[in-house]
């Protein structure tokens, strides 16, 4: 699941039955041997260029490893200009807000010339961000918080994605493909980000005269692909005007693919999902899935660092606020490129 962090947490917390295990999954802490301050791979500042500090997730998290790849690539330019980019990640996700706030303080204590950070937990982190801005150090908010957080804190910009926008893109894509009645399967009904995703789908498809209804599934089905698949199949059998299904996560997409097959409606029902993983890409390539919606984490790291560096050095600033890195629609047309990107650790 490549969701934003704060939303990952709330999604997981929504399912109380398996709260513990899911928090582990969603936030992905595995035992780490990093130092107490988290893992910081600090290149030596080689000249008099700016020292940029980036606060992010654990680098071995599949989502964040792609963000960090973008940061690393942007850092090449910074280093060429005599500056440095330092990645600060928490040791684990158990106490995320306070830990991330400490990492921001760490950056300040090392005389950062610029800070990039996600506003995962405003209550815990905004005070530290305020110190950054208060010391006239430029700040870019990325990944979580939205342009609202950036404006509130006085940051330059927000670089990241927006669930509602992502949903709209998916809905519009369904519309262009000719679908009229799309089922949005929500295995975590009530969570803000999943509701926004389904709402976006409905708004997006409305543009072409179609409609989307939500299929909320109770928590007793969460993480049981057979129960999810059978519920989707039942909905498909009950209403044969449904010609599209979209799921909020890749695991649910696997269940939905099976449901479509079991209901023998492969020819009339198109499948899409939020998020990417290899199984989705294989299905898109094989023709049994229409598309997946990607928030392109690489761009979050790459753009945030590049923008900050250029602002510090030359005062360059983009008028577009926020900078959205997604949604990108992955379908049969571009799946080969994406597969290559996934191999390279960028997508």
């Amino acid at each position, binding site marked *: 699941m490549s969701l934003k962090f704060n939303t990952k947490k709330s999604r997981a917390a929504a399912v109380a039955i398996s709260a513990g295990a899911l928090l*582990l999954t969603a936030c992905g802490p595995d035992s780490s041997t990093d130092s107490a301050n988290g893992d910081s791979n600090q290149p030596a500042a080689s000249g008099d260029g700016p020292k940029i500090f980036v606060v992010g997730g654990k680098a071995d998290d*599949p989502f964040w490893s792609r963000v960090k790849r973008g940061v690393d690539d942007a850092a090449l330019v910074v280093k060429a200009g005599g500056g440095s980019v330092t990645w600060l990640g928490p040791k684990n996700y158990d106490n995320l807000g306070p830990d991330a706030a400490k990492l921001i303080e760490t950056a300040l204590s090392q005389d950062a010339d610029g800070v990039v950070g996600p506003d995962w937990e405003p209550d815990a982190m905004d005070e530290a961000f305020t110190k950054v801005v208060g010391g006239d150090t430029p700040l870019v908010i990325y990944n979580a918080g939205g342009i609202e957080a950036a404006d509130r804190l006085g940051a330059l910009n927000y670089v990241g994605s927006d669930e509602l926008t992502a949903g709209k893109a998916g809905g519009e894509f369904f519309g262009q493909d000719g679908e009229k009645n799309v089922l949005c399967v929500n295995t975590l009904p009530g969570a803000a980000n999943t509701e926004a995703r389904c709402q976006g789908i409905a708004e997006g498809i409305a543009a072409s005269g179609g409609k989307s209804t939500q299929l909320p599934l109770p928590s007793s089905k969460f993480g049981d692909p*057979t129960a999810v698949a*059978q519920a989707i199949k039942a909905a498909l*059998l009950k209403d044969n005007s449904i010609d599209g299904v979209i799921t909020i996560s890749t695991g649910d997409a696997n269940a939905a693919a099976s449901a479509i097959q079991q209901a023998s409606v492969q020819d009339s029902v198109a499948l899409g999902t939020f998020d990417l993983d290899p199984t989705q890409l294989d299905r898109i390539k094989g023709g049994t899935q229409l598309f997946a919606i990607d928030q392109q984490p690489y761009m979050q790291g790459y753009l945030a660092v590049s923008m900050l560096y250029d602002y510090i050095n030359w005062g360059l600033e983009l008028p577009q606020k926020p900078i959205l890195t997604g949604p990108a629609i992955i379908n049969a047309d571009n799946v080969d490129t994406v597969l290559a990107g996934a191999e390279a650790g960028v997508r």
Partner: protein
Amino acid sequence: MTVHATEPDVRKRSTRATQTPSSFSLSNLLRRPESGALIATVGIYIFFVINGGEFFTASKGTATWLNPAAELGIIAIPVGLLMIAGELDLSVGSVLASSSMTLALVSGHWGQPIVLGVVVALSLGLLTGFVNGLIVTRSQVPSFVVTLATNFGLAGLALGVTRAVTGSTSVAIETDGWAKKVFGSYFGGGTFEVAIFWWLGVIVVVGWILHMSKYGNWIFAVGGDLVSARATGIPTDRVKIALFMGSAFGASLVGVIQTILYNSAQVANGQAFVFNSIIAVVIGGVLLTGGYGSVVGVVFGTLTFSIVGQGIYFTGWNPDWASLFLGVLLLIAVLMNNTFRRMALSYGPRKKKG
């Protein structure tokens, strides 16, 4: 779970009620532990036949509740056995997930033969059950706590290992040939999962153990009165360890089935089975405190739970209310069970017939 006779009494009568194939009169039938569960299943089914329409009764509609019931049943029956012996197993969720992930890692990620992946996955289940049983019997810590700890521990282990090895939380696996046929295929025109046959196998084997073999008496005795059971020479620790291994084995078998069925393993899968299996067992008339229950009852409990869970999607009602609906119907089913259990325990057989 309040009104019933004293524990030894329960054990004596329930053992008798489930062991002697005496005369089949209606009153005897009503006093069997599974009667309440049977009536609940039939009642719920009729309810959805009326409200769900033709799709519900068609073969694809039937598969909608039978497929999840089969997978749940493979776990619920051994869990039911364990509960009859007075213990709980809350670790089935993580056992399912870790077995599933083990198979995907061994045979998917590392490309080893599928048979090796399956054997390692099922062995992991048996090992977890053995550890659960060993800790419970040696430490006297309630199984609720021990297996809850195992559930968390194993979830963390599965996630940590998967992340370290693959850098992801979902691992793809492609299977074909015998493994796909045996574990993850459909029959009846691509409608019914082969898991249904596995479920039938579990029903027959466990039914024989509980109701025909001497081990069944041991299990009822362990759950009814542990001290007396031990005093009569029953190896109570070994019985419990075997039962923990049984429930974990069921969970890892479902893990294997789901992995091959959906061509991937997800670290977060399976947690729904922790409570769903206990719910199915309790609707099936098994006492939470142990010493009372039957395999057939658990089968009906599983069917009831599954029909209730899936039936609502055929009614056209707003699925927002699905959980409320589930809660109310579960309560009714269990209250009905209590009534039947009271009849079974307080009236007793009319006369001893030989």
